[in-house]
């Protein structure tokens, strides 16, 4: 599994192509479960990011964001999609480090990139 650099998520820098995410060959029927679960969490993340933008610093929205990123990371890790795991890790770091007003854009970029990756996996 190649290592990809996802540090661009914190500074709006370049990210690897979502079409290049590597999926373990033995993932089997778990892939559909994974994509379905991730897409559902991305929808939740989008809502949480928009709510966060509207009411910056709200602890409830922050907790929702952390929970979703952590859950996507955990599931990616369990099915062996390491690049997604790394992206989530970088996004978690970025969420803590970025100024509050920059966090929603980072989250929406994460959501768009991951959404594209999910579509690529199921094509």
């Amino acid at each position, binding site marked *: 599994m190649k290592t990809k650099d996802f540090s661009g998520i914190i500074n709006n820098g370049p990210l690897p192509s979502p079409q290049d995410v590597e999926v373990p060959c033995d993932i089997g029927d*778990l892939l559909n*479960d*994974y994509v379905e*679960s991730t897409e559902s969490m991305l929808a939740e993340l989008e809502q949480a990011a928009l709510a966060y933008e509207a009411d910056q610093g709200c602890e409830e929205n922050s907790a929702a964001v952390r*929970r979703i990123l*952590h*859950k996507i*990371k*955990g*599931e990616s*890790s*369990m*099915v*062996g999609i390491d690049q997604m795991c790394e992206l989530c890790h970088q996004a978690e770091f970025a969420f803590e480090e970025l100024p509050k007003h920059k966090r929603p854009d980072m989250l929406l970029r994460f959501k768009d990139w991951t959404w594209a990756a999910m579509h690529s996996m199921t094509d």
Partner: protein
Amino acid sequence: MALNVLIVDDSSLTRKRIRRIIEMVDLEVGRFMEAGNGIEALRILGESRVDLVLADLNMPEMGGADMVRRMKTSEATKSIPVVVVSTESRTTRIKDLLAEGVKDYLHKPFTPEEFREITQTLWSEQAIEYGDVLTKALSQALETMAFLTILPMEEDLAIPVKTVLAEISFTGAKTGTIQILAPWNFCEILAENIGALSEVDDKARHDALKELANVTSGLFLPMVVSSTADAFDITVPTTTSCDNSSQWHELVADQNSCVLNIEGYMVATRLIMKD
């Protein structure tokens, strides 16, 4: 014995994946049970027999750490081993969890080999704990009733050939049998100490070991099975004799047995628990 495993994670995908990893390991699983958070897990623990809990930390409503704390406050769940399965990598957090009673930690993702290693460690630890408890119970019983001394084990101790096996069963909160296997000549010393007899016949030997089984049960049951021996009915002890070493080899082969050196005589104890 087939193990009942409870997987606690808010991700159904992760629960499914963990289950498949366990299925790859040569471990006899009776039932897989699943919970989406600590509250659901505690409910299942209250209703079903669970032998191993695999739990995530970050879950809605009740996380893994709170669940473990709640488990430790209940007599029924405090000794069920919990292994945390998480992406948590802070060593201080993991140390805190281990201090709170978590048995071990698996980092997501984990391999079947890592899971196998953890279960092997867990069961061997449990066997040691059982053995320690049996040793303690038997030692206390001997000190109480027979004034005999427990010595360190020595390699050159002779395996008993002629033996007497005492069995005493208990029913109640738990059901099982305690067995004590002693050499023939040890029973003679025991009978002399208990009854101050100058001549000891076969009946006296058997009666002495029955008495040892009785008092051991009284000390043993509150120590590991329940907080009070009153919660159990104990049968009258029975004894059987054996003229070759087969009785000895059969009993000590069990992982739930322990052997003591009592003033140069090897005495073995075994606990047999029933579901």
